[in-house]
């Protein structure tokens, strides 16, 4: 009961804060749209060079995929790793740990509020892209339904994994390198460069096995209508498995890191 009331209060505060950063949020959105558009243009040109489609994706399919990917990207964003490292370095972590509520809770609220407030601004941009590249969606109603748990799982996975990475800030101040490496791996294996099925065999195998594909590609492809029922269920299952694994990894590393942190001193 108490947790609910705390969450409610945090939501209100967070919405008020989000209102302050309206302009900045719109600008950040513009930036988020650039990369998918760049690759969409490249794939469209490539598909056209190959007579209209590559690996089962027409230009319209690519457009639909990248529109869905951009949406999923925005809905699953998690930036806590960056903030956390800064807080540890600035010595702002210690007071937060003293509070009875785990610091994670506030960031959950902040995260959700940001996405809710920026979504209305993103949609027109997506419509523009879909129109410019003639997107062709093959979505069926059941896929819309399955999309919901899939994108929530993806968001949770990205969130937890982000905190897992961030926890290494307990040991090193050079977490930037780790985070940039993480970004680049996500770039390659999560579906930004290409839908996973179009990656060359060794990379594709890697991406199906690792958690990164389930952060972006999975819900995007489901939303686009590119998966059969069996495939969608399998994918959802993989997302959940990775969610649990990541959460376990995070808890272990966080606890170890906390011990290390308090031993060394704030």
């Amino acid at each position, binding site marked *: 009961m108490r947790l609910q009331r705390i969450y409610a209060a945090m939501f209100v505060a967070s919405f008020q804060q989000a209102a302050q950063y309206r302009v900045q949020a719109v600008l950040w959105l*513009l930036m988020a749209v*650039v*990369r998918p558009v760049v690759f969409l*243009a490249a794939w469209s040109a490539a598909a056209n*060079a190959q007579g209209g489609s590559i690996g089962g994706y027409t230009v319209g399919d690519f457009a639909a995929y990248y529109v869905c990917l951009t949406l999923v990207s925005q809905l699953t964003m998690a930036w806590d790793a960056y903030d956390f490292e800064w807080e540890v370095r600035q010595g702002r972590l210690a007071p937060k740990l003293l509070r009875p509520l785990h610091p994670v809770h506030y960031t959950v609220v902040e995260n959700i509020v940001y996405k809710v407030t920026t979504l209305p601004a993103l949609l027109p941009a997506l419509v523009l892209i879909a129109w*410019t590249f003639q997107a062709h969606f093959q979505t069926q109603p059941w896929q819309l339904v399955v999309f919901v748990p899939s994108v929530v799982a993806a968001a949770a996975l990205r969130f937890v994994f982000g905190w897992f990475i961030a926890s290494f800030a307990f040991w090193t101040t*050079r977490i930037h390198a780790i985070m*940039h490496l993480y970004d680049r791996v996500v*770039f390659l294996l999560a579906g930004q*460069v290409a839908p996973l099925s179009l990656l060359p065999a060794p990379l594709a195998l890697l991406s199906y096995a690792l958690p990164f594909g389930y952060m972006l590609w999975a819900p995007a492809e489901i939303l686009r209508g590119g998966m059969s029922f069996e495939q969608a269920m399998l994918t959802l299952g993989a997302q959940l498995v990775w969610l649990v694994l990541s959460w376990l990894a995070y808890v272990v590393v966080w606890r170890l890191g906390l011990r290390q942190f308090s031993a060394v001193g704030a």
Partner: protein
Amino acid sequence: MRYLRLLSLFAQTEFQFAVEYRANLLLDLFEEVVVVATSLIAVAVLFSHTGVINGWSLGQMIVLLGVYYLIQGAQSVVFEVSLERFMEHIRLGTLDFILIKPVNSQFMISTRHVQVAQLAQVLFGLGLVGVGVAQVGSSVGAREVISFVLTLACGLSLVYCVVLVLATVAFWATRVENLLAIFWSFLDAGRFPVDVYPGWLRVTLSTAVPIGVAVTIPAQAVAGRLDNLGLTLMLVGSVAAFIFASWFWQVGLRNYTGASA
């Protein structure tokens, strides 16, 4: 010349500072390698499905990617940090110290913080260009090299002009960092030739955000695919842009110092 000596002094002092943080330098280098490598893989993935994109072969695409990193690297070496610091100067009120010195203020604020340490990215870019050219197998003679160097300088200058104009807006509206951040992110579009983009995007990337032109034209030049008309247009356009940007800077400066407009 005096300004060359100044430039080298700027480079020295900034480099000394960077070297103090050797570990960071090495990490930055490692990150660069990762970034370039993953970008190369991305291009390879694309070309595993097709031999040619809009008339660009794999080798030519690698050349383009190389030019992309060349331009990225060059602008972060020459003026990126300096112009960021300029906007801080306006915020903190320390621009006056620069204006009161007997030096050209545009030069000072554009190059004070030359980051020689970022040359690594330029070298990677150059390396990629070499690899790409070898892949393509075309002959690279004096004409190609000269037009490459010229168009590269023009491309860099075009990016400089846009960034300078955006930074100059700081004279009127102090919160310009966001505007610049968007611009930097749009540079990402330069990793592919400007002609893969549909209509209105292509126009934007050839004018307002000239990264498309800045990267594609030199890539064409070194591959021998740039005719004299294109070269002339690039040169004329860059000079015009530079004149405009410098003029706009003067306007901003006069406004700041309260000269009657």
